Structures are given as C-alpha cells and as structure tokens.
C-alpha cells in the first residue's frame, strides 16, 4: 500500500500541500471558489513550524497497520478498508466522541465544524497521486510503498559511503 512518506529536510514550510488538500476536499475543486464554500473545506495534512529549531515538518495520517484510532472507535466509523488497506472514516457512523483524536499519536484527526464529525486524510481516493504530494514543490512528500521509500534511502546512503570511500575520507 502506497503511503505519503515525508522527507522533512526538504520541507520549506510553504504549505502548498495544506492548500491543495483543502481544495481537493472541496465541492468545486478550485481554489478561488473553494474559499467561498460552505462548509469551508479543511486540510487533512498539517505543516508544523517549530520556532526553536526554525524548521517546518509536514505531518500526515500514517494509516497505521494497528491504528489506535480504529481500536478505540465505538461505532467503527474509523476502520481499516480491507481492499485498499487504508484507514477510512465514515462520517455517517461518527458520533463525535473524539477518542480517536485523543489517542492519535500524530494528532492528525481534525473536526468538521458544521457536521460535528471527525475528518482525516483519505489518501485522495479519486486521484492517482494525493493532492499534497503533487503540490509539493520540493518533493518533500513522496507517494510510495514503504519498501520502495526505504530503497531510495538505502541507495542514497550507499552513494554517500561510496563517494566517501573514493575520496579516502573513509579508510
């Protein structure tokens, strides 16, 4: 299952992903119309700025394999889809008890103001690539399976080591 993997060192805090997410989850799918919509479309990806370290980190739903949110939900509004393996939220089953939000380690469960139910990343089921990934200008967000993402990191690490060996900085 492909997930939104994050390379926080590339994040420059532009929040294009947040805007793209909100627009994707609007009726009109257009930025200027979306602003005027009611209910106002909300983002499900969050860019957290840490003042002490002067960095921005994007945080998204991890679609955990043993998700705490699905464990505690009393009505099964949050559940794991058997086919896509995603953690999905069904608003018609949600009673707004917010236990999911309380136990989520990443704090990525938000609240729809008017409907008074939870909302979270759905990996854009109507798109090939999630809106946030496509919008990111620095490719800090990568849509890949864990093994492929790790594979990229391994290649990069190996390359660094190899270069180090070449220049003799690693004996």
């Amino acid at each position, binding site marked *: 299952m492909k997930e939104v993997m*994050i390379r*926080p*060192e590339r994040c420059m805090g532009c929040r294009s992903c947040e805007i793209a997410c909100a627009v994707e989850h609007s009726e009109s799918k257009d930025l200027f119309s979306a602003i005027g919509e009611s209910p106002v479309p909300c983002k499900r990806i*969050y860019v*957290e700025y*840490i003042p*002490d*370290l002067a*960095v921005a*980190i994007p*945080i998204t739903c991890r679609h955990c394999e043993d998700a705490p949110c699905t464990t505690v939900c*009393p*009505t099964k509004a949050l559940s794991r889809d058997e086919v896509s393996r995603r953690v999905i939220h069904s608003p018609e089953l*949600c*009673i*707004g*008890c*917010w*236990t999911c*939000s*309380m*136990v*989520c*380690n*990443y*704090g*990525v*469960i*938000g*609240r729809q*103001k008017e409907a*008074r*139910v939870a909302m979270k990343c759905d990996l854009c089921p109507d798109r090939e690539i999630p809106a946030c990934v496509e919008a990111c200008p620095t490719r800090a967000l990568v849509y890949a399976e864990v093994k492929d993402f790790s594979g990229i990191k391994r290649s990069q690490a190996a390359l660094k080591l190899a270069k180090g060996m070449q220049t003799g900085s690693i004996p």
Partner: protein
Amino acid sequence: MPEAVYADLSRCIACHACELACERENESAKIFVQVVRGLAAVPVSCRQCETPLCAAVCPGEALNYRDSRLEYDAEKCTGCRLCVLACPFGTAELRAGVVERCDLCQGKEIPACVATCPSGALFCAEAENLGEDIRTRRAERIKKALGNPEPAGRRVNR
C-alpha cells in the same frame, strides 16, 4: 465550542485523585480510573459526544443537546434508564432517580478532576485543538531524530 475532559494516557498513574475530587465537587464520582492488566491506567468519563446517543433515546426530553452542550433537566427525568443503555462508553448512571454523568463541573472555571490531577494527565480541550499539541510534539521528535546522531550509549529522553 464543544469541550470535554481528555487524558494524556502516558501520564496517568492511577492515583484516583480525580475520582475523589469529582466526588467532593459533585455528589458522586463521574470519572472512573482503573489499571488494565497491570500495564496502563485509564480514566473514563462522559465523552460529551457531539451526536449524543443518550439524548437521542431520552423519551422525556430530560437530556437535550443545545448550544454544543448536553443539558440535563432532572425535573423532566422519568428514571427510565434508557440513556444508561444507550451510552457506548457506560459512563452514565442512574442514582436516586437522577442521571449522573460528567458535566464538566458546570459553573466552575475548571473541572475538579483537571485541577486536581497531580501528573497533568487530565486536561480540558476543544475537539478542534486536540490534534495541535500532539502534532507539535511529534514534529519536534522527528526533527531531532533526523538531526546529528547522539554519541553511542546515551539515550535521549523526551
């Protein structure tokens, strides 16, 4: 704005101070703490659901969801206990003809349990903002993990 008492489960030490404070403030305790399998302590109280099933089932209109808050009118309560049967969390009780559930210590600035909790596990929050604290903490952790590695043999405590 809808508010409720939430728990940072990593901090609960099962001291039961919240139960005692609640009992002192109200007639009986509306928060219940227990240790699960000797591994974790969890306080449970009314979740202040935004779609309250207890109010949905009340035949006498004693429980009413109004202005983002659940209101209880004891005068209209018939003691039918249907609300107790509706609650998915088992946090409502009928005692002496009155439904007992956490109402955030109505009229007080801060709920008794939150004020008393010695480990800071209990806090009052609006559902909207719940995720924010958690996100900030997690973001800091990730950044630290990606920073220069600590020398071997030393654990970083966070």
